[in-house]
């Protein structure tokens, strides 16, 4: 998966896509995921890092990450690998 690398996220969760001029709000864990995607982390790594940080379980994370990625794709912030 490939994230749009120009995305700018502010500390308070305001996300700006300079390519389209569109803005978003994202919650802290969402921002962390986007940062991890930008630095090229794999899905596996992202899940294991989040598991260290948050009080939750793997199944929930997998499901929610999948859902989050779908929405990022819908917003055209994330694309499938070519």
């Amino acid at each position, binding site marked *: 998966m490939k994230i749009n690398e120009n995305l700018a996220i502010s500390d308070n969760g305001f*996300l700006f896509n300079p390519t389209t001029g*569109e*803005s*978003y*709000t*994202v*919650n*802290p*864990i*969402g921002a962390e*995921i986007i940062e991890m995607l930008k630095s090229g982390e794999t899905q596996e790594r992202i899940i294991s890092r989040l598991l*260290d*940080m*948050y*009080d*939750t379980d793997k199944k*929930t994370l997998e499901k*929610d*990450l999948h*859902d*989050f990625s*779908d*929405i*990022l794709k*819908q*917003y055209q912030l994330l694309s499938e690998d070519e």
Partner: protein
Amino acid sequence: MEKKQYERPHIIKLEAGMPGKFGMRSESLPVTHIDGVSVKELTTNFGSPLFVLSERTIRSVYRKALKSFSTRYPKVQFAWSYKTNYLTAVCKIYHQEGSWAEVVSGFEYDKAIANGVDPARIIFNGPGKSADDLRKAANGGSLIHIDHLDELYTLTDLAGELPRKPLVAIRVNMDTGIYPMWDRFGFNYENGQAWDAINKIMMAGKLELVGLHTHIGTFILSAGAYGVAAGKLADLALGIRQKFGHDIRYIDMGGGFASKNTLKGSYLPGSDTNPTFDDYAEAITSALVNSGFRPDNLPLLILETGRALIDEAGYIISTVIANKRLSSGRRATIIDAGVNLLFTSFWYQHPITPAQGFSQYREDNTLYGPLCMNIDCIRESANLPLLNKGDRIVIHYTGAYNLTQWMQFITLRPNVVLIDEDSKPHVVRENEMLSTINGPEKTPPHLA
């Protein structure tokens, strides 16, 4: 290192035009306690979904309504509309507060008697009274509100065999300027049916005409319509006095005041915009006081208010079963309370709040109940925090009609808890079990 509390990742596009014309409506302030009892404790002890009723709210709303009327008019009597909520505990609170009973079937009549209501303080409305119902009510000296001519004739015939003259009123329907006009119950004012019925009662002399009744509709958002209706009933009463030298004892304005709920499709929340008890009271009492009654001979004003008295006192606590996305990308949340319990979600956008703290992030949701039926949608759109499986929510203003029109459909009905004025919860109706449903069934021998 301590782990952080988990919240689902969430992102939402900021759209031009949002927030809407009236700003963002937030239903998101969590309601973690009801009358001092924690939602968590309630579901732990009594299960989920759970109906919760607040005795404190029932009493305070009743007193507020009574005050609105009794500060404007000398003789006011409420009669609790049983069909709105006939749980025994609920009826008994209203009766303790001084309410009479308003019933619309033989079953409800028997329930009022079993609740210890003096038969002389039972108003019997409705188009479906049987001859037995009429006999029972007449013998008890209850107030029988005649709906149609067939009933009038039946009761007139019965009167001959009864030890006492039945006490009756007629139900009158009329044009009060609102749409739709309810004309299927009672006798019409404008076309002379009402006068025709009055003449028949007065001429035959078998029945004692003690009152005039109307119920102009339900969830009436125009207080002025009640002023028109009260004026028309006052006209009839004064006409009866003039023509027959007979004073009726009461004018019964029925129910129909809007509760704080928001009708589906409304722009603004009902709690901000619907008329108040003071608005309705002002319209009704000024029409009566300004009509031709002598000040020392005003009729008793009866009110059969249902939903506006009890909606606010009812809550449903429900638990998130799952969340998913619809094909459009829209968030859908499945909760364990469906339209089988929340009949009124067909009419209202019930306010819904989370029962635990959340971050400021929220999303638009469609809320579905647990039934495997397409109709089972509690809210087409609700802006809620990011709910996870197992989270609890509180659905508000559910006290009216749901505990009488609920359906035993697909699932069993849950516990109903009343929280008393000392914040002590009491189960007032136990959850159903398989035996509740199977009990009355009979299996023919060849299928046993």
